[in-house]
């Protein structure tokens, strides 16, 4: 490397550094600070210490709303793992076989990933409409009327329905990631196992799945980050009140309602909102760091 002046790299670094620090790093960490204040969005901010967290965790009705949203969020994540990621693994295995029109299938499966979450939510809300929606009408035609229900109006089915729509949209992403992972597995491992008499089924369990562990980890963490910050799909399908009776309320919708809207009757409460954002930040950051730690351990093993 040639001899260079000490200030030279900083000329290149400072613009991005400023942008990133002022408009991303500072706002993110500032949320943690703001959770210690009482603020309505206008006027002065008052320092209240951990009062917002006390209200969030201990004081009704805030704690009921919070733990409800937290459990719903965990349920949303688990549903996505099954409806989206397990299904994606199946499709990736199928697409990795020698098949015709493979590119066509991939292009179509991936297409919804490029659409707006909001629009997809709107389209499906109309399709799932109990009186005019195509979904219930199709079920009726197939003589499966007993399965037809007011999907988004039913407390037990609304969250699974939303998780399905979310999976419908994003399944292309894990499919492509698993597919890339499968194609990176050296063919000779399979050859050796075949010579040893393994059938396709045991090839999957003994080779494909263990080899995919890093990709599965990556998909899981991306799903978790996405689910624990999701808002639009629920906003589109159930509004900010995340009905019916808060059965689809997740941390993202609770946060928005608390900090920005007065729909729930109370005025905007940015301090309490910041406390919710801090909890979301902590969950995501801990999951990501845990995953990094596991990855580092796996790589050194």
């Amino acid at each position, binding site marked *: 490397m040639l001899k260079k002046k000490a200030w030279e790299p900083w000329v290149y670094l400072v*613009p991005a550094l400023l*942008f990133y620090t002022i*408009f991303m790093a500072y706002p993110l960490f500032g949320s943690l600070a703001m959770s210690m204040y009482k603020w309505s969005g206008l006027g002065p901010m008052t320092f209240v210490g951990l009062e917002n967290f006390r209200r969030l965790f201990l004081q009704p009705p805030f704690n009921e709303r919070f733990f409800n949203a937290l459990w719903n969020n965990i349920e949303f994540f688990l549903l996505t793992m099954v409806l989206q990621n397990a299904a994606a693994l199946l499709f990736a295995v199928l697409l990795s076989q020698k098949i015709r029109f493979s590119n066509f299938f991939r292009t179509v499966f991936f297409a919804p990933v490029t659409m*707006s979450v909001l629009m997809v939510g709107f*389209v*499906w809300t109309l399709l799932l409409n109990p009186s005019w929606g195509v979904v219930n009408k199709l079920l009726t035609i197939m003589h499966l009327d007993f399965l037809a229900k007011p999907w988004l109006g039913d407390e037990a089915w609304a969250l699974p329905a939303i998780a399905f729509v979310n999976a419908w949209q994003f399944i292309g*992403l894990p499919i492509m*990631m698993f597919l890339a992972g499968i194609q990176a597995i050296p063919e000779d491992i399979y050859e050796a196992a075949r010579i040893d008499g393994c059938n396709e089924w045991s090839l999957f369990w003994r080779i494909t799945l263990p080899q995919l562990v890093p990709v599965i980890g990556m998909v899981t963490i991306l799903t978790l980050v996405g689910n624990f910050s999701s808002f639009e799909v629920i906003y589109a399908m159930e509004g900010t009140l995340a009905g019916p009776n808060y059965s689809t309320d997740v941390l993202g919708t609770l946060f928005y309602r608390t900090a920005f809207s007065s729909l729930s009757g109370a005025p905007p409460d940015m301090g309490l909102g910041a406390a919710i954002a801090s909890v979301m930040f902590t969950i995501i950051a801990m999951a990501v760091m845990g995953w990094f730690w596991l990855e580092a351990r796996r790589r050194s093993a």
Partner: protein
Amino acid sequence: MWMLRRRILQIVLYAFLLWQLAVVIYPLFIMVATSFKTNFEVLSNPFGWPQKLNLEGYRTVWELNNFALYYRNSILVTVVSLGLILALSILAAYGLARFQFPGNRALYFYFLAGMMIPIRLGVLNLFRLFLKLDLFDNLLALILTYTAMGIPFSVFILTGFFAELPRELGEAAEIDGCNSWRALLHVYLPLMRPALATAAIYHFIPIWNDFYFPLVFIKSDHLKTIPLGTAIFYGQFQTDWPTVFAALTTAIIPALAFYLLMAGQFIKGLTAGAVKG
């Protein structure tokens, strides 16, 4: 026997794939088909092709909605944000990859940390910041947010790109009397097109489709982007199905067409972050 088994497996395999194909395409078909039906036909013939093209829905969308303006705003915000992301990230990646200085590693990880944390968790402070800077209800608020949001991933991709190039490339240029700026401009930049395309496509989708920040930062109708404008329209016309589906079709189709034209690039770009990480 073995052949028969194989044959059956093949059929099952294609059955699964065709099923998923229908699951993806049919809702989109319904969206487009319904937008051309009349309100009556939506009820009498919900599944099939429209009997004839009824453009009433599209006319309502065009007359009552500022779609042209929303498109302009979306294009403006997306193009400027992408330009800023790429320009700032090229410089930063160059500084990180081609210079050795104390704190280099730490700075790289500082940038990378932003890749996993969604910027929307900082929306309250962005809101406060833009109120103070008098940028509330201003497209610049969106541009600044998206630019900051895009920097971590682009710095990651482009630093990786610089690291793969032979060091001699820039050094040769510098021996020939180029300073580092000219080496970047004339030697590296022309080679960076694929990496820049990957970064641009990766950010295009979330910026173009973003609803969250416009919802919080934009109030005036003439500053709305497509998702925000469509959301308001959807709220007003929820029961008029051909019209609402016409609005959704108008909002979705252009980006979808863009994707279909360059599907390979998109799939590569959007999965790049995940696979390379």
